[in-house]
């Protein structure tokens, strides 16, 4: 009995967490429809600030990552491909690696590290300092007032950053390939455009939106799960980060397996 309990307890705990998260998501959606006529300006302002902190402020780090990645791809791949037709091959590599796979997942990790942690810690702190209770007393639904602007802000930010990263990495790769290996610019571009299908763009967008919803939902959920003391703040933040990363990896792999 003891062994069964020991094996079963973590499983049951995870199942409960999953159920609670599902309930949190459904309640958040319901809160939107219940409260949609209140505080729209405040919500819009909060979502705009979230985009500013998550997307605009992340442009330097995303630019830096883009430079590292297109440099690595061009140098590593360019060295092993024959000179003739190198542009076409490099273009194809950029479509497969950047548009289909890396752009959404890299941006998600940047957002988890910068904004996911901030959201989880901020909401935990708001729980401990009775800020969420204060909203409830005023009849303001925290799921509507706190969670929805963050979900919208994070999702829009990941989508924008992912597009920015994709374009920057391809353009950067094209210029670097031209500089290092004398690959003609038009040939590289031809390689990208010939291999990029509408499905690739759609999958890039789908992954970005899904990662945005997952990261913001999980970080808000763990933040608002804090109950008693400030010592829970780092614990909840860690859980939010780890679970967000795992979910992004699993969803990314699942989408790739299904569509390609």
């Amino acid at each position, binding site marked *: 009995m003891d062994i069964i309990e020991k094996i079963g307890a973590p499983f049951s705990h995870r199942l409960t967490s999953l159920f609670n998260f599902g309930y949190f998501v459904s309640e958040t959606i319901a809160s939107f429809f*219940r409260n949609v006529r*209140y*505080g729209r*300006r*405040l919500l819009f302002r909060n979502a705009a600030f979230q985009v500013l902190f998550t997307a605009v402020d992340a442009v330097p780090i995303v630019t830096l990552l883009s430079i590292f990645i297109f440099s690595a791809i061009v140098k590593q791949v360019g060295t092993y491909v024959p000179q003739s037709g190198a542009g076409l091959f490099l273009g194809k590599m950029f479509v497969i690696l950047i548009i289909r796979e890396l752009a959404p997942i890299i941006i998600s990790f940047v957002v988890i590290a910068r904004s996911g942690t901030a959201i989880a810690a*901020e909401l935990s*702190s708001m729980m*401990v*300092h*009775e*800020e969420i*209770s*204060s909203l*409830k*007393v*005023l*009849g*303001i*639904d925290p799921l509507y*007032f706190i969670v929805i602007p963050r979900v919208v802000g994070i999702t829009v930010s990941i989508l924008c950053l992912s597009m920015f990263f994709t374009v920057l990495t391809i353009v950067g790769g094209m210029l670097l390939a031209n500089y290092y290996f004398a690959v003609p610019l038009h040939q590289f571009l031809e390689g990208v455009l010939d291999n990029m299908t509408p499905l690739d763009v759609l999958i890039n967008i789908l992954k970005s939106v899904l990662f945005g919803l997952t990261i913001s939902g999980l970080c808000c959920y763990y933040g608002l799960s804090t109950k008693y003391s400030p010592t829970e703040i780092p614990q909840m933040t860690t859980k939010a980060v780890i679970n967000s990363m795992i979910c992004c990896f699993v969803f990314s792999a699942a989408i790739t397996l299904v569509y390609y």
Partner: protein
Amino acid sequence: MGNGFIRFRDVSFAIEGRTLLEKLNVSLEQGLIYALIGPNGGGKSVFMKLLGGIFEPTSGALEVTIDGKTYQVDDAIKRHILRSGFVFEHGGLMNNMSVFDNIALPLRYYRTMSEKDIDLGVRRILGLLEMESHGDSRPSQLSHGNRRLVNIAMALANNPQLILYDSPTLGLDPGAARAIKTLIRRFHKQYNVTSMIATNDIDLAADIADRLVFIDKSTVLMIDTPAAVMRSDDPGIKDYLKSYTLSSSQE
């Protein structure tokens, strides 16, 4: 149980398998000042949080009667029918907003007036509390006493029918405590609200309240005038008052 302003009907509250309040049947009259007293861990905070809508009863219901109509208290009722303010013992203010924005929050959220009127309303409340110069400050920049005043201002801005004070004078110097006591009385009259003060300060409770609510062991043992509670024969109440008198005289 009378037909009061707010009623607890068989209200129980449990968290993580522990029952913190059990089958409460309590009726509160409109326009009175209540003081909630009793030993620590007896259920005062839970009672206040149920009344403020922060917790929801595990079983039973909270009802409010306004203009002859009775409603079960839920989020929609809290928005439209029973507006409340809660003066927290710690926190309760949005730390990422200025004092002005904290007070204006419910007004902006419900958008019942123009931004110009909100500005005037908030400045008037800041003026009442003699805090005009603190409008642009962040809550973390204020003293403990001033943070509590902002909490009161936030409660008043929502034009409440019910104000809940959790240990309003705890940790304040005697002058600040006296000022808070005067403000509670003043706003109670001015805004014609029902006030509930959770406190361990029996002198404050007896001095300010129309009724004392004695709560212990997850249930309300007595609601009556301060004089009647002080004369109570209930052993639990007698012991508590005796220990309070002893500790006060030792201080």
